């Protein structure tokens, strides 16, 4: 790859580059002023040396005004090949500075992968454009080269920015806590890129009417369209994502089933457009470069091959998508309202509530889009691994397994079923005793449907009766049962227990602490009396978990991070203390036995 080699080239840093550019610019300006001091420079500007020498002794009484002076200076610089390149370089330098400013304003510090992508894209761009200008167009004249350079400068700048936006968007979508204004800045930048690229497209259309050939127009327009479509793609995905996360709560539940196909088709269409335009662009280049057996055509052929495979891959993927969709629609009916009501569980794939679902032959229910995306990559039920035949003969025998007779119970035990799995893993853990209630408690976590205030009101009702129960536990159970009576029943039955780490938690709801009598699942080791100097652990941390730790899932991410950090520290400290204690005990035991041994010996001696 060319960029890997180029990436290692020693590139001066920004400050050095800017300084060099400024120096070169001032030199060329000086050079140009020297030339235009001679009023007759226009006639002999091709003989630079002569002009320079004769310009040395000019009369100070130059009649030209400052305005015309500047105009001539500029004219001279554009005419002069060396000066033109300096100007282009200056433009490039200013673009870099502008880019740097935008980066500071919008992106802040770039991440390593973004930097890598940027560099990669930059060298790639340079490489292909070089081939384009010298291999395909075979440009002969200096001014043409300059024009192309300026064009690609603008284009490359915008496409680099667009690439950066794409990377940053993907990164931001990894975090639930991104502040709104960083989204806004990114969107503004994307809009600006889009507007500029459409201006560039308009510019080429205008140019096509007046001075450039159709071929040149096609080359230029293709690049603009590529840039524009890519930018629109990022923007659309961004908007879908924002709608998805910002409108969370009520609206997402409804839009869930539409979201999957929407994202999918946005991706499909824009990717196919980009690939097709790129493909024809390259075909055009290949046909245009009249020397077929050249390095340039070789490179273009390679690129064409890659693009062709990409298009093929994308279409195969889409066929698969359609086949799965078709298969699902034919074989797996939508679950009826009764079935949904019977099954209080969430979708096992996304852990969100199901308003509508598809039913597999094994009676497991999933969201339509969740199931779809899973079946695209594997043909078995996610929960019970029942093989689902996509094609006619594929795994036919596995489908023969008769569906479970007792449908509703089986369905309800989705989590329970897996929980058994887990208990198999943990069965040898001595202190791990889990009741069904525990399972009930943890079975259901992400029902965001009930509004918080409603839940709070219900929790308060329960807490009036059972003040010693922490609010979080009650809320958790309420999310399961969705009824005050059931939760109370759970408490009365002793099904609802307080995890031990919650017992010592000082409740914000001012729950009397002495009433925390409820079952301790784990034996609390007596760790407070650690006066041994070897236990170089601060006493303050010993014993109970720091109060702000367990049982609470804070709304603020900073607090969550802090709590997690503390919990980890606490776990480490406790483990360390236990370890030391145990080993000390065994040491003491051994010394004790030694002592008794010696005593025995003494006794026998005496």
């Amino acid at each position, binding site marked *: 790859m060319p960029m890997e080699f180029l990436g290692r080239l020693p590139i001066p840093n920004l400050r050095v580059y800017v300084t060099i550019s400024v120096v070169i610019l001032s030199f060329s300006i000086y050079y140009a002023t020297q030339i235009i001091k001679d009023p007759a420079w226009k006639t002999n500007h091709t003989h630079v040396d002569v002009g320079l020498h004769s310009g040395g002794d000019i009369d100070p009484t130059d009649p030209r005004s400052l305005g015309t002076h500047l105009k001539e200076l500029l004219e001279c610089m554009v005419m002069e090949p060396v000066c033109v390149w300096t100007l282009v370089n200056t433009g490039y330098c200013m673009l870099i500075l502008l880019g740097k400013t935008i980066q500071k304003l919008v992106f802040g510090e770039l991440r390593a992968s973004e930097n890598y992508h940027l560099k990669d894209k930059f060298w790639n761009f340079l490489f292909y454009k070089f081939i384009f200008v010298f291999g395909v167009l075979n440009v002969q004249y200096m001014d043409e080269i300059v024009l192309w350079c300026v064009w690609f400068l603008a284009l490359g700048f915008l496409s680099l920015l667009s690439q950066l936006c794409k990377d940053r968007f993907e990164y931001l979508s990894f975090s*639930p806590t991104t502040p709104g204004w960083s989204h806004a800045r990114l969107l503004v930048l994307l809009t600006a890129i889009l507007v500029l690229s459409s201006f560039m497209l308009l510019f080429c259309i205008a140019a096509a009417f007046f001075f450039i050939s159709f071929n040149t127009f096609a080359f230029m327009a293709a690049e603009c369209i590529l840039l524009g479509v890519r930018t629109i793609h990022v923007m659309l995905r961004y908007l879908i994502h924002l709608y998805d996360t910002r409108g969370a709560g009520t609206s997402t539940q409804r839009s869930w089933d539409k979201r999957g196909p929407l994202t999918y088709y946005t991706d499909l269409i824009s990717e196919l457009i980009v690939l097709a335009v790129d493909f024809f662009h390259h075909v055009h280049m290949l046909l245009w470069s009249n020397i077929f057996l050249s390095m340039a055509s070789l490179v273009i052929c390679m690129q064409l091959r890659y693009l062709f495979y990409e298009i093929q891959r994308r279409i195969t993927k889409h066929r698969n998508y359609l086949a799965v969709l078709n298969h699902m629609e034919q074989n797996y009916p939508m679950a009826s309202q009764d079935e949904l009501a019977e099954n209080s569980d969430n979708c096992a794939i*996304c852990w*969100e509530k199901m308003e509508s679902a598809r039913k597999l032959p094994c009676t497991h229910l999933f969201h339509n889009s969740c199931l779809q995306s899973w079946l695209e990559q*594997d043909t078995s039920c996610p929960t019970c691994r029942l093989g689902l035949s996509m094609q006619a003969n594929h795994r036919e025998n596995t489908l023969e397994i008769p569906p479970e007779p007792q449908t509703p119970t089986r369905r309800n035990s989705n989590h329970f079923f897996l929980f058994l799995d887990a208990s198999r893993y943990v069965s*040898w*853990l001595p202190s791990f005793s889990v009741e069904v209630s525990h399972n009930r408690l943890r079975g259901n976590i992400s029902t965001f449907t009930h509004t918080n205030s409603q839940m709070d009101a219900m929790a308060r009702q329960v807490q009036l009766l059972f003040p010693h129960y922490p609010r979080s536990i009650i809320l958790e159970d309420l999310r399961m049962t969705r009824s005050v009576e059931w939760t109370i029943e759970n408490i009365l039955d002793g099904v609802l227990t307080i995890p031990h780490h919650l017992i010592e938690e000082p409740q914000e709801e001012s729950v009397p602490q002495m009433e925390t009598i409820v079952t301790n699942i784990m034996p609390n080791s007596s760790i407070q009396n650690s006066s041994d100097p070897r236990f170089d652990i601060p006493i303050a941390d010993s014993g109970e978990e720091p109060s702000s730790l*367990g049982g609470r*899932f804070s709304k603020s991410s900073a607090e969550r991070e802090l709590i997690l950090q503390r919990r980890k520290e606490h776990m480490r400290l406790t483990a*360390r203390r236990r*370890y030391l204690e145990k080993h000390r005990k065994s040491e003491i035991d051994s010394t004790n036995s030694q002592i008794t041994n010696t005593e025995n010996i003494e006794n026998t001696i005496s």
Partner: protein
Amino acid sequence: MAGSALRRLMAEYKQLTLNPPEGIIAGPINEENFFEWEALITGPEGTCFEGGVFPAKLIFPPDYPLSPPKMQFTCEMFHPNIYADGRVCISILHAPGDDPMGYESSAERWSPVQSVEKILLSVVSMLAEPNDESGANVDAAKMWRDDREEFEKIAQKLVRKTLGIPP
């Protein structure tokens, strides 16, 4: 894509925080990137890893839970099913398609109904009962089979190391 993965991870994080399984803590290191978690796993009691607190990193793909996360211990480990660089080799972490060892049945593989909690519990059980058929670390597998005492000695050394206790 990342949106639904994010919601699911958030739900799992919440569950793991509110109802933590014993001896296991897991959560994103930094919430700016919710796709990179750190987990602490306590060595199971009654085994040679008893008492240790082993840190591991979990990296989730953008299409989680359709694809499994990657798990890697960030402390030194010596175990038949853990590569020398800390990567964990258990069937639950393998997508149904790929089969590096060529023996796992697809029933044990990753499926979207698995979760972080189940992965970590499987890892705990793996610590207790190594599977010496899949040799991620051949030396460890051999020692586990032939010289159990030496293996336990090394394990205890690692336990002390994770706790910061000089041997």
